[in-house]
């Protein structure tokens, strides 16, 4: 892929947990409008790296570049950058309140007016076929439904980059099948996705670009065709 298509770059990222170095990545590139995958065995540092890339974790050494410009960690600028991204977490957290409140929350935080939030929440719920859940409380829905709500919450702001951390882990078969079939339809061409997964089906079906992590180091970056299928055992 060409340099023009790069939306986010990470250079010389080093992260420690106490005395232990858990990440040591010289160069990482996220391609615009593509499904970028981050794969690797458990404990390889995937989620830790995702938290750094999504600007949730600031406690690391190294540089991040968004569209060629270094990320500015001054409070207001950092907030502006964060608001261009969304994260779908593994086992998502829903706030106390209705499903509707949860989906519209990122818009409320951005000061969007109530009428507009209501309209967008309804639209997003229709796309994910969860309209009947809107009035339910956060603890009245299943794990699969929670994941759908968190997808709606992440997409409602139309982010430039969506970070997705093992979205189908610990979900039932029906919810996994829903995600595999519909997630790519929900993401627009302008959106960039970085998806962490252990699910080969998702990689084979969606990946435009693969990044493989092992023991905190990036051991492969490239397109899926070139990725030796024998390497899939490390997923």
């Amino acid at each position, binding site marked *: 892929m060409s340099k023009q298509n790069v939306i986010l770059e990470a250079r010389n990222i080093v992260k420690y947990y106490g005395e232990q170095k858990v990440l040591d990545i010289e160069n990482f590139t996220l391609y615009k409008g593509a499904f970028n995958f981050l794969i690797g065995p458990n404990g390889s540092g995937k989620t830790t790296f995702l938290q750094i890339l999504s600007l949730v974790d600031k406690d690391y050494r190294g540089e991040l570049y968004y569209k060629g410009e270094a990320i500015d960690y001054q409070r207001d600028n950092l907030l502006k950058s964060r608001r261009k991204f969304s994260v779908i977490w593994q086992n998502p*957290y829903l*706030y106390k309140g209705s499903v509707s409140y949860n989906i519209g929350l990122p818009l409320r935080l951005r000061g969007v007016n109530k009428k507009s939030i209501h309209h967008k929440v309804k639209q997003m719920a229709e796309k994910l076929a969860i309209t009947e859940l809107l009035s339910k409380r956060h603890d009245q829905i299943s794990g699969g439904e929670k994941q759908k709500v968190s997808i709606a919450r992440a997409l409602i702001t139309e982010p430039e980059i969506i970070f997705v951390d093992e979205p189908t882990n610990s979900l039932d078969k029906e919810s996994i099948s829903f995600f595999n079939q519909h997630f790519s339809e929900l993401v627009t061409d302008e959106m960039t996705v970085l998806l962490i997964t252990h699910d080969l089906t998702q990689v084979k079906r969606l990946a435009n670009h693969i990044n493989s992590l092992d023991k905190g180091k990036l051991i492969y970056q490239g397109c899926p065709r070139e990725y030796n299928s024998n390497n899939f055992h490390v997923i």
Partner: protein
Amino acid sequence: MNYLQEALIEAFKLIINLDRELLDVVTTSLRLSVTSTLIAALPGILLGIIISRNNFGGKKVINVILNTLLGLPTVVVGLFVYSLISRRGPLGELDMLFSIRGIILGQIILILPIIIALSRNAIHDIDDKMYKTAISMGATRLQQFKLLLAEARYGISGALIAAFGRVIGEIGVSMMLGGNIRGVTRTITTAMAMETNKGRFGFGLALGLILLTIAFLVNFGVYYLQAGESSV
């Protein structure tokens, strides 16, 4: 009719007729308790959050001290504050002894540990994912704080209700620092003690019934909030 029956009938009559003296004592008590709870709420909640969310040297010791102070005898607080605000005490010039301000100061000291400890527990119970999710949604620092308070609202409200329950039923602080002055610092508990000693058992019983009703409502409030926590 026996003594208890007569007293009970008199107590109910006083309550039903909204006896002026009775109302005066009850309103003084409620005013004092609400005021001290409201004043202690802000520092108590903030300290609870700070202790829960930060790791610092001596945190364990502070937690042990806090837990110890939960059962602080009211007369000990009364004695401590008395030594501060009596004429020869360091705050003697403020003329707070045997005044509403004196009782409020004592009650604040009595309930601060309760509000801090219960708020700390409420914040501690919140899943760590809540903070990460708030940051990733683009919440400002203030918005993160508001989300935190909203998530802990049942626990924090429970802390305030428990604190109110503690002050409305205490006697040590009110007696030692208020002096039981009629119409000024006479509270439900100090009036109960005094009127019963004077032989007005019916009056004392009426106040006791009112205090029991308030205690019931307070406990019902805590129960309702706990039920709300598990169902909302």
